[in-house]
């Protein structure tokens, strides 16, 4: 149902076409988006695969630490990395100033450029590829590689001819997730002033107040996204067949001291650039402004963020639990399609969802108002439009998949025999749920709630576009401060978001470390 509503924005394409848009804006948008996607794809693949290979199969100093620390950038929304990078590397930033003072006027590459966006997005999104590729390398084990070596391939050849092709479906799945995030990203693009579809939708919404224009842009963006979705689903289907042999992660490749040192420096640099430096800078900036900025308004921002994220997370968990449970009670291809359709929302950029949900809700609103006037002499302008409802609904659609994943896989781990064992011991349907399923699902439910909570906290476009008046959150505050270039003042809300974001990353690594999964 929510997805069907989203697709209704397609219907709007047939409406009046704004020739202006097509002629002047579209070519630039498509070009920008294509370059961005290609650049980020290359960036995250190089970073993600090389780091995954190093931590999964090689041994070098600090490997255990890097193994999980390299996931930390997941906690950093791309827009935070982005404004820190600009704040640091811009013409007026400390680096360029220092360089100027030491060597006089030197021309450094401009950070507010296509290359800069790609670099920042790659640093922010490589963990998607890293996480999945690392699992692939760790589970495919040394056996296939050893077989390759026994057949006369060198280790390097073995990597390119065996390990890499075997891990390809995983890498592709991670890559597609990263690209979906890229397409959906709004905050970073806004900060860099790099025009893509998401920013264009936002501008059409607020500057032109043109719903049709926003909807048309949204439907073009959806086409891009659908390509990524199809690729992602395909590579997921292949992932099943590619697990060969048992894992032998114990037998790591011992790197020579020089190579090990190089590996350490490389991993360390990436970690520093993607996480340590931005967070340190955030802390420094926060210290500068905390005295002035931490007033009662801040408590309202934080309160709004936590409240919205909590309600949203609760809705997501309940909906995901119902959906997963329905699939368990009535398995079948129709149910699989329902689940797939319902969880497709994660692929849709928040800006698109905001548009897709706003149009039908606005229509319903007008109808209700008319009916209200006619029937009860009721006089009002909006009922649903501009309420929290539409915002929460959009969150639900966008993040249902985030909650569905852990709950569904948790439910799959409860075998049918466990159900039958409980029933043969006298437990009815209610008993089964309260005494067996919910306790067994506890970690899954917590994980789902934590992931959804943090995703909603850092969510920017939906919140910006559908929030009722006065409902500013931490993410909105970041947007407002960064759009005025006040990096220091954006640091405080950003730091709060980052701290909340570290929770699920820890959960994620903790889950990955458990042998049962």
């Amino acid at each position, binding site marked *: 149902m929510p997805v069907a509503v989203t697709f209704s924005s397609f219907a709007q394409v047939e409406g009046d076409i704004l020739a202006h848009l097509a002629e002047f804006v579209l070519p630039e948008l498509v070009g920008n988006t294509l370059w961005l996607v290609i650049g980020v794809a290359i960036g995250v693949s190089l970073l993600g695969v090389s780091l995954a290979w190093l931590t999964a199969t090689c041994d070098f100093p600090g490997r255990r630490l890097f193994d999980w620390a390299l996931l930390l950038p997941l906690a950093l929304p791309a827009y935070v990395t982005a404004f820190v990078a600009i704040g640091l590397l811009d013409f007026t930033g400390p680096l360029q100033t220092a360089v100027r003072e030491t060597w006089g006027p030197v021309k450094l590459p401009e950070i507010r450029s296509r290359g800069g966006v790609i670099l920042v997005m790659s640093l922010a999104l490589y963990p998607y590829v890293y996480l999945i590729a690392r699992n692939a390398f760790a589970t495919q084990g040394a056996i296939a590689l050893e077989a390759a070596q026994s057949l006369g391939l060198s280790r390097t050849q073995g990597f390119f001819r065996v390990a890499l092709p075997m891990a390809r479906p995983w890498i592709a799945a991670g890559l597609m997730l990263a690209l979906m995030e890229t397409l959906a990203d709004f905050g970073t693009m806004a900060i860099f002033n790099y025009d893509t579809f998401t920013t264009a939708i936002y501008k059409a919404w607020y500057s032109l107040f043109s719903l049709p224009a926003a909807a048309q842009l949204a439907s073009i963006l959806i086409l891009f996204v659908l390509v990524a979705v199809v690729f992602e689903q395909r590579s997921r289907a292949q992932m099943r067949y590619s697990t060969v042999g048992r894992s032998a992660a114990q037998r790591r490749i011992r790197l020579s001291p020089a190579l090990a040192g190089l590996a350490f420096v490389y991993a360390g640099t990436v970690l520093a650039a993607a996480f340590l430096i931005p967070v340190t800078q955030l802390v420094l900036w926060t210290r500068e402004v905390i005295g002035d900025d931490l007033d009662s308004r801040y408590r309202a921002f934080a309160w709004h963020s936590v409240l919205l994220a909590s309600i949203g997370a609760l809705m997501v968990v309940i909906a995901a639990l119902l959906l997963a449970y329905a699939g368990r009670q009535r398995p079948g291809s129709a149910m699989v399609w329902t689940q797939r359709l319902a969880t497709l929302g994660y692929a849709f950029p928040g800006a698109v969802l905001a548009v897709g949900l706003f149009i039908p809700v606005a229509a319903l609103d007008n109808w209700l108002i008319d009916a209200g006037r006619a029937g009860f002499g009721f006089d009002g302008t909006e009922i649903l439009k501009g309420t929290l409802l539409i915002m929460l609904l959009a969150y639900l659609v966008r993040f249902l998949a985030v909650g569905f994943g852990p709950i569904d896989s948790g439910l799959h781990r409860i075998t049918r025999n466990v159900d039958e*064992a409980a*029933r*043969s011991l006298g437990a009815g349907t209610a008993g089964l749920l309260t005494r067996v399923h919910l*306790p*067994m699902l506890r970690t899954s439910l917590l994980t789902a709630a934590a992931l959804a909570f943090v995703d909603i906290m850092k969510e920017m476009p939906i919140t910006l576009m559908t929030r009722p008046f006065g409902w500013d959150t931490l993410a909105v505050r970041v947007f407002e401060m960064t759009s005025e270039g006040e990096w220091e003042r954006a640091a405080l809300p950003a730091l709060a978001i980052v701290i909340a974001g570290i929770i699920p990353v820890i959960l994620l690594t903790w889950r990955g470390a458990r042998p049962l999964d």
Partner: protein
Amino acid sequence: MAELILDSVSQSYGTRQIIADLSFTLPEGAIGCLLGPSGCGKTTALRCISGFEAIQSGEIRIGGDVASRPGWMLPAEKRRIGMVFQDYALFPHLTVADNVGFGLRGETHAARQARIAEMLELVGLGGHAGQFPHQLSGGQQQRVALARALAPRPRLILMDEPFSNLDVELRERLSLEVRDILKREATTALIVTHDQHEAFSLADWVGVMHRGRIQQWDTPYRLYHEPANRFVADFVGQGALVTGEVINDHQVEIELGVLNGHVPVECDASGCDECMRNCQVDVLLRPDDIIHDDDSLMLAEIENKAFRGAEFLYTLRLPSGQRALSLVPSHHNHAIGEKIGIRLAVDHVVAFRRE
């Protein structure tokens, strides 16, 4: 404890018949076993009895009460049937003691604790009450599953391939242990397995199933020595069929000589004595029906041999080219291709009409 009766039970998925006309009676306190190759319908039969599958015809009665009939079934949770699953299906979030106590509702705390302790003692896990399932070995988990199923004093225990996840040695030891426990609790139990050794060491009654039908419901001894049809003869134990000709209702001639004993074949609808003469049959020879005897004039060539420790299992080629098996004490070590003397030692005749 109760008697279990299946009265011509049938079940099918769409057009595919899973079990057909299944009938047997398992007396109170007895251990029964459904034995058959995978896909023979034995697990479906178990699920019908436990109340997880509906039946399309016939009737299932437990302790005299109807549990299933077409269009109606007593819910699984009301049947008071204990189940032990292949993967044990222990509740991972509960301790051993809480697993065992799961089915004990509506009893006082003290009675509950006493029953849990009693059950854990029975299965020899007294010291493991506070542990979680994943801290136990496979054999221990198996025993927890059994204790959990026995704790609410069920009328009947059902076990689905209970030992297939264990290694061979443990399997044999545990199956004797389980029989012991079931007998001590005087529980009626039905076990499903594809392993005849398991069936023979556990069960009082064994039903051999094939294509959804029970081929024979009998004691293990009679299944081995008096198989009702070719499938049972082939599935249970080892042996070979050789051609023979009926002389009369207590004599059959095969190429190794004349076998004496009741000939369980009907060659003609009338079943008269005279009409059986010259009837062509296949006679089942078990490996222990052919004895190696150096003094015998009857010779057979060794075509293959398998060392079993205490004995050799020789595959013999008889003069006509037919094959037979013989179990020979292992100090009689002969080479492949050698001819050895053999002699028949058949207790009773097992023969099937040749089609």
